[in-house]
């Protein structure tokens, strides 16, 4: 009886503990797939912290081993992880891998493994996997993740490889600078450029015609166009102008900070200090667009899927995205869709969506891995990927091709390239993007806080 009681107690205690574990698991990474990884982190990261201290940041493990600039020629397998936005891109990547494997002539075999982007969870899952001992050698990348991985000594410094690379000059120096900034160093470069996406404004020429507006050349004209394009229209061809069309397809959910940044800069603000009068004015313009009814009422919760769906269904006259969606826009509207770079006000800025590659410090064959990432950066891999996806190439040679010179969306991208930038990459940026920005801006759109309060919160949370 006593034993029975004891077991009952043990089971009941275990159930109680399960609650905490559920929460602890949540605390350690949430539900489903990510729940287990941080539990591994807990075990793995703690002992690693001193090791991180021991290894001077200036001399990460991979750098300490003097990099072999040339591959050995021995048969080597490189495990490459990537995400693809759709099944066409998945196949394209597999085609590039197959071509590289067949033609590299150095015994290098790349094995590509696709993982979902999952609204940005790709990077978190990758971090958890690497901390748990994943054997991935190379991965596609977003700059915002760099500080986290660098702080945990997970990336190879690519500087010696790039310096010895014959095609180094084919990529603009300022792109290398952005890569270095992301790693928090002026000398070490942990990220290899691959392709960029420059955000521009999609618009419907037929809507502009009906509203009597020209393609905006200034920020004020753009705001005016948002106002004028908000109207009743016949979008389903039934002869009745009974559909509410909104001038601007605002993205208030995660990812919306990119188009929002254009408003802040156009009003004269900047990311360095979001509390200046000009930056607050940009925020107020953004709020006014929503509160005056020039953006859909769903804007505070609209993400990528929604802004694209709204534009494609004719509900919005303009929205901001990049060439990644241009193919489907053309398929939907034919010639009745075009694009322009976000216009200048006091300042001008647009978001440079970035995609790069990295080599992990756990990779046993970094020289061979570099052969692969350099093939994606300036070789045939660059041409195939950028032509297939419509992304802007980083290779100057590839960018000169007819495909990129004769495309109206690519032209809008190239028009914006000179003032394209990225959010400050800090260790707070990921949380700021995924939670702080959408909710704080949501409070401002709902009228719960003023533009000034909103910007003060955004500033303090980004630079805390």
């Amino acid at each position, binding site marked *: 009886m006593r034993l029975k009681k004891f077991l009952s107690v043990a089971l009941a205690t275990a159930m109680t503990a399960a609650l905490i574990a559920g929460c602890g698991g949540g*605390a350690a990474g949430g539900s489903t797939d990510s729940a287990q990884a941080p539990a591994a982190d807990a075990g793995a990261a703690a002992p*690693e912290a001193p090791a991180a201290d021991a290894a001077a940041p200036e001399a990460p493990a991979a750098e300490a081993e003097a990099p072999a600039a040339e591959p050995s020629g021995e048969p080597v397998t490189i495990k490459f992880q990537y995400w693809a936005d759709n099944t066409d891109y998945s196949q394209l990547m597999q085609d590039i891998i197959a071509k590289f494997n067949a033609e590299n002539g150095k015994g290098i075999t790349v094995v590509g493994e696709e993982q979902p982007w999952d609204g940005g969870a790709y990077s978190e899952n990758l971090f958890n996997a690497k901390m748990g001992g994943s054997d991935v050698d190379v991965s596609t990348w977003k700059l915002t993740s760099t500080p986290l991985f660098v702080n945990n000594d997970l990336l190879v410094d690519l500087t010696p490889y790039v310096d010895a690379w014959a095609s180094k000059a084919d990529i603009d120096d300022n792109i290398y600078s952005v890569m270095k900034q992301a790693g928090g160093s002026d000398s070490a470069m942990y990220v290899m450029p691959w392709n960029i996406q420059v955000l521009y404004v999609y618009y419907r020429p037929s809507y502009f015609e009906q509203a009597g507006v020209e393609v905006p050349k200034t920020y004020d004209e753009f705001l005016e166009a948002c106002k004028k394009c908000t109207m009743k229209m016949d979008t389903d061809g039934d002869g009745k102008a009974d559909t509410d069309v909104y001038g601007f397809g605002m993205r*208030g959910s995660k990812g919306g900070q990119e188009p929002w940044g254009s408003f802040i800069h156009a009003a004269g603000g900047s990311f360095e200090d979001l509390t200046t009068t000009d930056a607050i004015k940009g925020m107020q313009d953004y709020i006014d667009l929503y509160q005056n009814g020039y953006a859909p009422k*769903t804007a505070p*919760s609209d993400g990528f899927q929604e802004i694209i769906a709204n534009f494609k269904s004719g509900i919005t006259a303009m929205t901001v995205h990049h060439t990644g969606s241009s193919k489907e826009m053309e398929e939907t509207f034919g010639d009745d869709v075009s694009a322009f770079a976000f216009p200048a006000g006091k300042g001008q800025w647009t978001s440079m969506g970035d995609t790069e590659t990295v080599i992990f410090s756990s990779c046993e064959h970094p020289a061979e891995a570099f052969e692969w990432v350099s093939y994606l950066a300036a070789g045939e891999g660059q041409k195939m990927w950028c032509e297939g996806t419509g992304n802007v190439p980083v290779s100057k040679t590839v960018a000169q091709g007819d495909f990129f010179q004769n495309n109206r969306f690519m032209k809008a991208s190239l028009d914006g390239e000179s003032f394209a930038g990225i959010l400050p990459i800090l260790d707070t940026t990921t949380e700021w993007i995924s939670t702080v920005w959408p909710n704080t801006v949501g409070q401002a759109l709902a009228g719960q806080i003023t533009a000034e309060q909103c910007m003060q919160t955004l500033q303090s949370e980004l630079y805390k």
Partner: protein
Amino acid sequence: MNKKKSIYPYLLVAPAVLVILCVVFIPVCNAVLMSFQSYDLRRPKNIAWIHFQNYIEAFGDPLFQSALIRTLLWVLFGVGFQFIFGFILALILNQQFRGRGVVRALSMIPWVTPGVLIGLMWRWIYDGNNGVLNDILLKLGLIQEKIPFLSEVSTAFPAVIVTIVWQGIPFFALMLLAALQGVPQDMYEAADIDGATKLQKLFFITLPSIKNTIFVTVLLRIIWVANSVDVIFNMTEGGPAYSTQTLSVYIYQKANALNLGYASAMAIILALCLLVVVVPYLKMNFSEEK
């Protein structure tokens, strides 16, 4: 012989107990330890013991406070309505009618659908531009213009509560139906002879007979709903303007941001709150043992 007989069941249970102890207690210990550290993997070199600092910070954090209150409302309305509608469904399914088996099977669909799928499905149902709910309400003439259910602070939280209620009704119905079928029919017959009304039979026979099942089901559901993240996260990610951010969602967000120390502290607080529910549950189990 008797001794062998008494040990045998415990030997059967032992592997499960061992696994639970290993799988559950190690993460629990980790969570407790992390809650006393500045365990932020974004700044791994700054990890240090900070005693109760995470807990103090949590109680001073306006987002934590509002999330805690919202969690109470989430559980109160979520579980409350699940019970009411689940009980009604159980009473209906307890009646004899043609196709009862099919209806019973179909009514289980929300419960067997994954939370992630439910979140995505209801997100599109509620969509302010293309959602079917707006379409139906417009066609019925109940609204004049579309309502952005998940985009407005005033409607987002009720909308996610409706979703969790929809998901949980079948569980209540299933548990209560099983209990209802165990209520002896002769008690109803005796009540009929005494001239009891339907309401009197409900309150004096049905409810007292199934009260233990109600108690256990409500307690279990409170624990599950309080810890639930999937539905809210897939519908609103805690927005707009934090209006659907429950404590478990906030914990998830902080953990995803790799601030594991702070997230663990909040998780411990949530677990302690849930002890209010767990203790009566354990007490009841012990009293049944006796």
